[in-house]
């Protein structure tokens, strides 16, 4: 078997094989971000990538080149690996855009992986997004590599001497500290029209302290033990669903703010209103009774907040495991004291 492969790579037929592969690089493209639009441009009538024999093909089994367009998340890495393994040898990988190179705008983010750790990469195409010319140049470079056998960059950048004065005076020091952010107040009273005020008064009659925070916006603060009672009262009042569940991490005050935005589809005068039902939790013991039984639409969003912040919604069945994040994501990535990978400054 080894001998046969060696014969294929350097035997008497190798030049023919190289010629065929050279002119027939069919890219299967894995679009994860905006670079896909640039790839479409590169193969449309303006630039026409088919000129150089590259035909876009949807199926990995029958192609020999994969173009990864955009950031690869932890979940997507698996897909990339499977797609790459499906392809028959000889196969090549081109990574397009800055996101695949070093993360781009998602640099040092908890959910990204580096594509070159997942698959062996032949060429990187820089740019955010890369231009069609750059992509076609990348394919040409790959053709050159197949023909001559040696990979090389298609461009050499001029080296610029940064003088002493341009040095950054102080590089950021590690470990980084959490800044003492100004305290976050959710229920700042603001001016509003009469109807909203009237509605807020009506809700206040239920025994709940409301604040009007804008036109059709009402905030309502409760203690964490009273949350379920308050939700039941509001349900009887006419609110029938949760639009959004939100958690705000305030580490310098040692608390989480948990918000439920309630709305109504069934009662006409409540339809434009968004009611912010919020409570505060200590960071050391972030436990709360779930509202998923009362408002079923809160279920998934509570799971997601559990993924991100580690707030335990007691009564929700999904607590303690990952819902939307990949299983190997580090725990509670949106907490403010989450430790990111330390970056290194060269100078």
């Amino acid at each position, binding site marked *: 078997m080894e001998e046969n492969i060696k014969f*294929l790579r350097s035997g008497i*037929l190798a030049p*023919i*094989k190289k*010629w*065929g*592969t*050279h*002119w*027939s690089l069919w890219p299967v493209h894995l679009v994860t971000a905006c670079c896909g639009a640039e790839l479409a441009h590169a193969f*449309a*009538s303006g630039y*026409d990538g*088919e*000129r*150089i*024999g590259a*035909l876009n*093909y*949807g*199926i990995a*089994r*029958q192609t*020999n080149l994969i173009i990864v367009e955009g950031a690869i998340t932890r979940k997507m890495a698996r897909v990339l690996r499977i797609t790459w393994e*499906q392809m*028959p*040898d*000889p196969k090549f990988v081109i990574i397009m855009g800055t996101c695949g190179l070093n993360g781009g705008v998602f640099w040092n983010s908890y959910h990204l992986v580096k594509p070159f750790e997942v698959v062996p990469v032949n060429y990187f195409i820089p740019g955010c997004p890369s231009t069609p010319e750059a992509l076609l140049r990348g394919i040409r470079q790959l053709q050159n590599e197949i023909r001559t056998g040696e990979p090389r960059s298609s461009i050499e950048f001029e080296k610029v001497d940064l003088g002493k004065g341009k040095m950054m005076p102080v590089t950021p020091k590690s470990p980084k500290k959490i800044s003492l952010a100004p305290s976050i107040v959710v229920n700042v009273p603001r001016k509003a029209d009469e109807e909203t005020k009237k509605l807020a008064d009506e809700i206040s009659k239920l025994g709940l302290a409301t604040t009007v925070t804008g036109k059709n916006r009402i905030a309502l603060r409760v203690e964490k033990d009273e949350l379920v009672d308050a939700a039941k009262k509001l349900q009887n009042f006419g609110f029938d669903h949760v639009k959004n569940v939100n958690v705000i991490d305030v580490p310098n005050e040692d608390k989480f703010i948990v918000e439920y935005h309630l709305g109504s589809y069934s009662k006409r005068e409540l339809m434009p209103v968004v009611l912010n039902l919020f409570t505060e939790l200590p960071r050391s013991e972030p436990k709360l009774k779930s509202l998923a039984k009362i408002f079923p639409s809160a279920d998934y969003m509570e799971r997601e907040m559990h993924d991100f912040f580690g707030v335990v919604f007691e009564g929700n069945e999904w607590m303690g495991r990952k819902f939307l994040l990949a299983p190997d994501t580090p725990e509670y990535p949106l907490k403010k004291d989450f430790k990111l990978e330390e970056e290194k400054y060269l100078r």
Partner: protein
Amino acid sequence: MEALVISHQKQIGDKMLEGLISGLFKIFTSNMMNIPLIEPLVDYLMQIPLVNLLVALILWRPFFAVIILPGLVGLLIYLLWIVYWERKLTARVQWRVGPIEVARPIRGAIQALADGIRYFFQEAIIHREAHKIYYIQLPILAFIPILLPLLFIPAGNVVGIKTPYGIQLIVAFIALIPLFIVAMGWASHSRFAYIGSLREAFMYFAYEIPFIIAVVAMIYVYGSGDPYVAVEKQNIPGAVLNPLAFIVYIIAMIMATSRLPFEIPEADQEIAFGPFVEYSGILFGLVMTLLYEKLYLMALLFVILFLGGWEGFYVGILGDFCAPLVLFIKTVVVISVLVIVRSVYARYRLDQAIRLGWTSYLTLSIAALILGMFVGVLV
């Protein structure tokens, strides 16, 4: 003593071989192509022993029909041409130039060759779930119904097997091809392949019945299933004699070879090439060309039935070679016009295509049959 026996046996063996060669030579030379253009060359080569056997074999009419033209070599040339032409045509429709850089002086005409070589040298993956034996042998077995009709397709004097039931036999063998495609999908043992096989089976019933009825209508018109009779009677082309059958046949050609308005079993954007999804390397190269080959066969029959077959120009210097050439050129022109449907039409849904096949299309074919009966009485 032993040496004597061996030499004696050797003599017998030599005699038998000589007899075989001379016998074969006699068979080949009795039915040879007569091409005045290369006659001096042939005469010179015939004087060399053994080479003359090879030359006689190549110019033996049945061999020439099946292997050279309109048989295998013609098929190969046609494949290289049509894949390139289809890509180029689609590119022009979309305001692009299409493959060109591979060979600039000839506008990239060898692009299909490069793709073929790439497929030939690529790894052929056999995935774990496949029924290994069937999976490997079916793409190769599928050549049986491709090659068998070539035996019965005549071109003037050049014909593999001469029979009065030629047209029926060609149709019968063409009808076998979808079985192999369905079997490929089954052997691949994958979801997309399963859906693709199912669609192929549905489509098979949608087009095959009207297609056969259209051919039967033309057999009524000519009063015989003999391709020679069909071509002889076409003083007026068959397309004018029975235009309904002509239309039905064209639609059948598009449907049977999964051209775009009916590209339902393969639908690469939906089910990733359906029955062929798991094939890679040389095996995919074989199955991808399968439908092009089917198109070639159906177009050959189309030319014989509707466009006057090999009757066209006659160049005296080409002799017997003229008829296959005319047939081949007509076929390639027909297909080259037909492939434009790929770049101008959208895809039908499966249920729409089947509804079309079983209602208006079937009705049209029956009307063609009735018209064929009347015309058959008149002609």
